[in-house]
């Protein structure tokens, strides 16, 4: 049975992806640092679901998460990197501590988890990784510099890992979602993003890698 790890799974898009993959028949491991909410999200899914409390800013914990999933479930087929931190602080007020926190929770965690999972998937000759990014990566606005930099980094990592792993049956793609404040664009429901993630990890998506699929209601057409 296929095993999927979803980070930032306690709420929102991560939770919707966990729910969708579970409904599609995967064993789903939900990881989040919000212990109670994550346990509730896992319990809500019932069988074939496991909730793990982990702070992905902690590098050894992030790498240990992948090793633990492989050990307990016999392998890892799908990784969905969705962990992030709310990051609204204005550029001029941004502390080094907050910069590091945001970059570590999203970009570094994506790197560490993708590398750990990617090495395992490369050996097995199959795997799917989906990275959740945002419009901030492509159309940065004044304000949250750390958020924009982290998301742009995730898109770049997506391509590097895709190039590394393409010959080994492992695909890695990004979903860049979001709308701008001034736009009349429609924001995607978490279930819609989950549907795209489910497509990208399906057998039908084996020829798609290193791509960034935009879900932004037309806010940025590129």
């Amino acid at each position, binding site marked *: 049975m296929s095993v999927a790890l979803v980070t930032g799974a306690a709420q929102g898009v991560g939770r919707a992806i966990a729910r969708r993959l579970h409904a599609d028949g995967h064993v789903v491991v939900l990881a989040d640092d919000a212990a109670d909410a994550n346990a509730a999200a896992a319990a809500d899914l019932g069988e074939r679901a496991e909730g793990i409390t982990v702070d992905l800013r902690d590098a050894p914990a992030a790498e240990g998460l992948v090793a633990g999933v492989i050990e307990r479930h016999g392998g890892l087929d799908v990784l969905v990197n969705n962990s992030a931190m709310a990051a609204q602080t204005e550029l001029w007020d941004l502390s080094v501590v907050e910069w590091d926190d945001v970059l570590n929770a999203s970009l570094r965690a994506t790197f560490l988890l993708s590398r750990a999972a990617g090495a395992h998937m490369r050996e097995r000759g199959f795997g799917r990784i989906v990275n959740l990014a945002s419009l901030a990566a492509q159309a940065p606005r004044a304000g949250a510099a750390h958020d924009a930099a982290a998301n742009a980094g995730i898109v770049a990592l997506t391509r590097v890992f895709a190039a590394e792993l393409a010959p080994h049956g492992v695909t890695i793609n990004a979903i860049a979602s979001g709308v701008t404040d001034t736009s009349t664009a429609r924001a*995607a429901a978490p279930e819609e993003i989950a549907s795209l993630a489910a497509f990208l990890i*399906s*057998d039908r998506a084996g020829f798609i*890698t290193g791509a960034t699929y935009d879900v*932004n209601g037309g806010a940025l057409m590129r």
Partner: protein
Amino acid sequence: MTDTPHLGGLSGRTAIVTGAAQGLGAEIARALHADGASIVVADLDADGAARTAQELGDRTVAVAVDVRERAAFETMLATALDTFGALHIVVNNAARTVPRPFFEIDADEWDDVLAVNLRSVLFGCQVLGGHLRDAGQGGRIVNLGSMAGQIGGLVAGAHYAASKAGIGVVTKIAAAALAPYGVTVNTVAPAAIAGPAMDAMDPAAVQAAVARIPVGRAGQPQEVAGVVAWLCSDDAASVTGATYDVNGGLFMR
């Protein structure tokens, strides 16, 4: 690995697919049909269109049209409305793939490739998009672009690449015009897909091209059709003006 096509997700919908007699167009028609849609199978090749429609079975109608002419889209619309009572989805796929060296492209061939590949998309978005706008029930338009339109062709000529680049921008303008009406317009940009165009190539050239594809193989038409089908689903309501690449990692953007 679980696969989750939206079987039945398009039931009650009607789709027009141009260039559906063979290759990618036929696969797109097949994918949308499998998801439950009724299909207007449109092609210049009347026999080929009839063959695809017959293969798919019920919920299909074949129509012979020349997409270089605006009237073709009026015909397709009338066929959809007369046969199935409504139109919800348009896939502008018809194209000429011509592998012509740059210095050998003459004006007639340039004009014809642009007319088949690009002018058809303008008409499709105007005539059929205009109908979807006025019908008030939303809708989906998917235009087939190509990696050739992003970075130049691996094998196809400058006219083909220019037409595909044009499709990218027509998609965005049509998307903006139709967004207030719940009609999404997107491009799917494939590269290195097995099919008639690749079959016509010199085998050694095919082998050399495949060797450059990061995933180590050519794509299958079904793999493009899957993305098109997802973009036609209800779940894709927030995706418009976008370009979804299906290129085996040849161009990551």
